[in-house]
C-alpha cells in the first residue's frame, strides 16, 4: 500500500526533474533531435523569390516553437507552431534563409488598420560565437543580433541585450542613441544588412531573408563559409493580436554554412579556403568546449535523477 501510494509521487518527481533537465539543456537536446539546418552552397546567384523551384525543392528543417510564457504580456493559450527552415550561401558571400509557416490569415498593415497587427518572424544570432547567449534575447554580456521581418516585406536589423554593456561614448560611436531607447534597438542605417522577399498564398507565408555574410559593424556578426552558427526563431501571428512579447519562440539550433564541395584549382582560391578551414576549426573547438560542459552537466543531472529514483523505489520501501 505504502509503496503504491508513493509510486505516483516519485514518478511525478522524476518527470518534473526530467522536465527541468529538458528545460535547462533544451538547446543541446533539441539540437540533437533535429539535425540542424544546413545552408547549401550555391555557385552563382541564389534565387530570392520564395516560390522559386530552388527553395521549394530544398529539404527543410522543421523547427518547433512554443508561446512565450515568461514575461507579461503573455501570448495567451500556449500552443505549438512550426516553422520550416532552409538556407543557402553562395560564392558571392550571400546568406539567404528561407522561412515557411502556416498562417491562415495574411495580416499586413493597411491604411486605417488601427487594430491590425502585422505577421512577423525573427531570426536571432549570437553576436559572438564564444558561448551561447540566453535564449530570450541575450544578456548584457552576451548580446544577440536579430533580424525582424514584418509583413508584407520589411526586414530590420536589431540588437538586443547589448544596451547596458556599453558606455554612452561607445554607443554613439556605433551610431546608437547615447542612452538606450529600449532593450531591443534598431541599428543605424549602415548596419541594416538584412533584406527580404515574401509571398503569402494559400495560408502559408514563404519568406526569404538575406544578407551579405561579411559585416564591418561591431554588433552584426560576420559569418564565413563552413562555419556553424547558432540560430533561434520567433513567429508572431497578427490575427491573434500578437506583437512584442506575445510571440512563439524556438530553442537554439545550429545553422551550418556549407563551403564549396570540390577543392578549388586556382592558387589564390586555395589561400582563401585555407583561411576558412582554419576559422571553422577554431569555432568548432570553442563550441566543442561548451558542448562538453553541457553534456557533462546533463549526465550529472541524469545520474542524480537515477539516484533519487533508486532511493525512492528501492531503498525507502525496504526501510519501512
Amino acid at each position, binding site marked *: 500500500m505504502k509503496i503504491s501510494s508513493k509510486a505516483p509521487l516519485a514518478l511525478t518527481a522524476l518527470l518534473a526533474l526530467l522536465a527541468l533537465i529538458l528545460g535547462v539543456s533544451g538547446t543541446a537536446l533539441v539540437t540533437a533531435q533535429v539535425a540542424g539546418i544546413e545552408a547549401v552552397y550555391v555557385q552563382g546567384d541564389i534565387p530570392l523569390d520564395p516560390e522559386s523551384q530552388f527553395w521549394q525543392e530544398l529539404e527543410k528543417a522543421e523547427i518547433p516553437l512554443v508561446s512565450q510564457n515568461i*514575461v*507579461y*504580456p503573455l501570448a*495567451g493559450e500556449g500552443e505549438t507552431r512550426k516553422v520550416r527552415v532552409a538556407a543557402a550561401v553562395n560564392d558571392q558571400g550571400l546568406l539567404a534563409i528561407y522561412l515557411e509557416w502556416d498562417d491562415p490569415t495574411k495580416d499586413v*498593415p*493597411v*491604411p*486605417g*488598420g*488601427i*487594430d*491590425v*497587427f502585422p505577421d512577423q518572424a525573427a531570426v536571432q544570432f549570437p553576436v559572438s560565437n564564444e558561448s551561447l547567449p540566453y535564449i530570450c534575447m541575450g544578456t548584457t554580456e552576451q548580446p544577440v543580433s536579430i533580424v525582424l521581418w514584418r509583413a508584407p516585406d520589411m526586414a530590420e536589423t536589431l540588437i538586443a541585450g547589448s544596451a*547596458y554593456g556599453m558606455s554612452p561614448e561607445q554607443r554613439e560611436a556605433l551610431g546608437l*542613441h547615447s*542612452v538606450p*531607447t*529600449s*532593450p531591443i534597438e534598431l541599428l543605424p542605417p549602415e548596419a541594416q544588412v538584412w533584406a527580404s522577399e515574401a509571398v503569402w498564398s494559400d495560408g502559408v507565408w514563404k519568406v526569404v531573408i538575406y544578407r551579405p555574410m561579411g559585416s564591418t559593424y561591431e554588433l552584426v556578426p560576420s559569418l564565413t563559409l563552413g562555419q556553424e552558427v547558432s540560430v533561434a526563431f520567433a513567429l508572431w501571428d497578427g490575427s491573434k*493580436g500578437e*506583437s*512584442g*512579447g506575445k510571440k512563439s519562440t524556438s530553442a537554439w539550433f545550429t545553422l551550418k554554412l556549407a563551403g564549396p564541395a570540390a577543392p578549388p584549382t586556382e592558387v589564390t582560391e586555395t589561400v582563401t579556403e585555407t583561411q576558412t578551414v582554419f576559422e571553422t576549426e577554431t569555432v568548432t573547438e570553442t563550441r566543442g568546449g561548451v558542448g562538453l560542459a553541457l553534456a557533462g552537466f546533463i549526465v550529472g543531472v541524469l545520474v542524480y535523477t537515477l539516484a533519487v529514483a533508486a532511493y525512492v523505489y528501492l531503498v525507502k520501501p525496504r526501510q519501512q
Partner: protein
Amino acid sequence: MVRAQISMVMVLDKCIGCHTCSLTCKNVWTNREGQEYAWWNNVETRPGVGFPKVWENQEKYGGGWTLQNGKLRLRIETKKYKMPSKEDYYEPFTYEYDKLFSDQLMDQQPHADPISLYSDEKIEVQWGPNFDDDLAGGDLTIPADPNWAGMEKAMYKEFKNVFMFYLPRICNHCLNPSCLAACPRKSIYKRPEDGIVLIDQTRCRGYRQCVQACPYKKVYYNWKTGKSEKCIFCYPRIETGQPPVCALTCVGKIRYVGVVLYDEERALEVAKAPESQLVALQRDLILDPFDPQVVRAAREAGVPDNFIEAARKSPIYYMFKKWEIALPLHPEFRTLPMVFYVPPLNPVITILDKNGKLGADYDSVIPTIDKLRIPIRYLANMFAAGNEEEVRKALKKLLAIREFFRQIEVEGKSKSEAAWVLEENGLTVQDAEMMFRWLAHSRDRYVIPTAKKELRIRVPRRG
C-alpha cells in the same frame, strides 16, 4: 515627495458644443496621415455613447485598473479584450469638393460625395466622432450610455425632452496612468516637472497595450508610423507659459489651466481607496500651496519657486481642492485623472407658487438639488464613482453663488446682507468674488509657470 502637476478644469455649463477645441487641436497636432481618426481633444454630447463608441464600458475595452484583494491590477491583465477597431472609432472622410466646381452643367445642383481618407473611394458614412451630437440618433445611441447605471429605464426615454450637456475630453494626464503601466517597453513617461504624460516615439513599437489600458481611450495608434500617440497638453506651449491650443481657442472660455502641488507618495494608496471615497481622497492628495511646510517640502523636491507661486493662484487648486466644485471624470477607473469638470446645473427649474413665492422644492432659497433637470445619479456615475453627495455639494455651491449675486443685483441687498447664502454652503464673500471673476468674467483663466529647464528634475534612468 511633493510634485507639481499641470492641470485643467472645464466648466461644463459654459460649453456650447462648438468643437472649436477639437478642430484647433487637430489642425495643430493630428492633421496628418496615420492620425486622421485621432481626436486628442473631442467633444461629446451627454447622454450619449461618446468617442470611441461607449468608451466608458470597460467590460468591452478593458481600460483602467481594478482592485483585486486590495491590489491594483490592470484590467487588461485579467482577461483578453479586443483592440478598439475602425468600427469603434470611425472611417475618416472628406468630400469631393472639387466636383462642386468642375461638374458638368445639369438640372440638379452639383453635390460632393463623402470620400474615405483611407481609400480615397466613395463611402457610405456610418459613424463619426460626434455622430450623436445634440442627441442625434437618440433612441439608438443614448440608452447605451453606461452612466445610466442604477437608474430606471423609463428615464432614458424622457431625457431628450429634459436635458443634455457637452463633455469635452482630453488626456487626463493621470497620477496613476494605466497606459504607462501597460507599456512593456516603458515608452510612456510622466514628466516629473509638470506631470504631463508623454509617449517616447523612439521607444514605442506600436504594441498598443496603452491603447487598450487607457480607460478614456485617449491613446491613438498611428497606422502610418506604427507607433501610438496622445494629447501632449501642448507642452511646447506650456513650457513658455502659454495655454494649450484647446484652452486658448475655447469659445465659451470654459477651460482653466494651472498647477497643483500634490503628495506623490500617497497617490498609489489613494488609487486603492473604496469607490465612495475616491474623490475625497484625491482632493486630499492636493497640497495647500500656502502651507509653509508644503512649500519647504516642495522646494526640497526641486519644485521651482515660480511653480509654487503659480500653485497659489491656480484656478484648479481653488475649484477642485478649496471649493470642491470641480470633479474628476470617472475616478472609479483608479487612474487619478488630473483634468476636472465643474458639473452642469442647466437648466434650473424655477417654480414659483401662485403667490410668487418659492415652492416646496426649495431648500431655503436654493432649489433642491435633486429637482434639477440633470439626474444627480447620472452626474455621480460620471464624476464621482457613484457618490451623489460629491455632486450635490458641488452643485449647491454653484447655486449659492448665483443666489448671492442675484440678491445683490436684483434685490439690491448689500454683500453682508446676502452673505448668509454663501455661509450656508461653506463659502465666504471673498470666495464668491473669486469665483465670480473666474466663472463669470473668465479672467485669469490661465496661470501657467514657464518651464525652468535649468532646474529640471531628473529621474533615474530606466531599463
